[in-house]
């Protein structure tokens, strides 16, 4: 049972995270060669009002680990709020060149949360998020990279069967509904967006593979 479950999880992970689709064109990205990334507040298209702030807590690390300088997200958010830019939709509509110049950032990452929800069914709860990422050049405003990432999570089902199994599943589903596991899901989405060759981001200046990964990105 455990073996089957783990195999299933592995397959699911492969199918969602490391899936290779059409390779992206990195010409503009390589040409711009951004070293620092400004992350502006995320636009929220989900019904969960807390989603953008929670998401913000997951975003700096994976980008810094790709080798980029990432501007301090909380400080940037506070400065923008004080500057009358607390509305994410408004910030996303602003001229990227002007925005980048306020912080002397090489590029800006715009995040739109399309989906951030937990669908409850008595015996199974499915939590899913969908994120759009767009990076724009801070000196020209040109789009350098974009990605759409979906992630799903369903608590593992008790296949023990019988009434006990059903009750166990109902409890698991209710627990997930009460406290959906968004943060691990957001981390997985970021990893799946930024890391895979031909889809993710080339290594930044602080990574060992900087400018050595031309074949992959």
């Amino acid at each position, binding site marked *: 049972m455990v073996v089957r479950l*783990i*195999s299933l999880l*592995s397959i699911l992970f492969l199918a969602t995270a490391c899936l290779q689709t059409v390779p992206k064109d990195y010409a503009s990205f390589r040409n711009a060669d951004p070293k620092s990334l400004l992350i502006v507040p995320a636009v929220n298209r989900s019904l969960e009002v807390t989603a953008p*702030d929670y998401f913000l807590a*997951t975003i700096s690390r994976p980008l810094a680990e790709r080798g980029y300088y990432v501007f301090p997200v909380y*400080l940037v958010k506070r400065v923008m709020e*004080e*500057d009358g830019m607390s509305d994410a939709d408004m910030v996303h509509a602003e001229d990227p060149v002007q925005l980048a110049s306020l912080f002397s950032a090489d590029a800006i990452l715009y995040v739109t949360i399309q989906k951030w929800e937990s669908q409850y069914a008595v015996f199974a709860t499915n939590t899913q998020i969908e994120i759009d990422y767009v990076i724009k050049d801070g000196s020209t405003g040109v789009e350098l990279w974009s990605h759409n990432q979906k992630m799903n999570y369903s608590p593992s089902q008790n296949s023990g069967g019988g009434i006990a199994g059903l009750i166990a599943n109902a409890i698991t589903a209710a627990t997930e509904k009460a406290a959906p596991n968004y943060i691990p899901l957001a981390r997985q989405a970021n990893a799946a967006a930024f890391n895979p060759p031909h889809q993710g981001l080339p290594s930044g200046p602080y*990574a060992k593979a900087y400018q050595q990964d031309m074949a992959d990105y």
Partner: protein
Amino acid sequence: MNLKTTALVIAITLLTGCARPGLYNWGGYSNSMYTFYKNPEQKMQFTDTLLSVINTNEAAGKTVPPGIYAEYGYMMLETGQMPDAVIYFNKESKAWPEAKPFMETMVKLAKGHPKSTSSKAPIGAADVDLIQKGG
């Protein structure tokens, strides 16, 4: 190795397979920021975590991850501890040249601000003007 262990090893390899060995030690940064957003009264906890990430890395001679000095400097600025704010904004500049222009503006804000411990938002309209002019 039995079948179960093999499957587990494969699963773990896959789960970490897309990630690479880390460049930095982040300590509890991400979880702590999440807790802070979830519950803004947890600001002290977030501040403490930032300082602990800084101290742990400095003691080990490792590079403090990007943005951490600046976030901590801002926490100091928000609580009116201006000399500390200046120190940490300068540390961010020194560690990360990309941050220098922004940090120089933050240093000017911290130096120009009355050293009060008032809980009022430290960045006012005049300061925003300063930021827009690039210091």
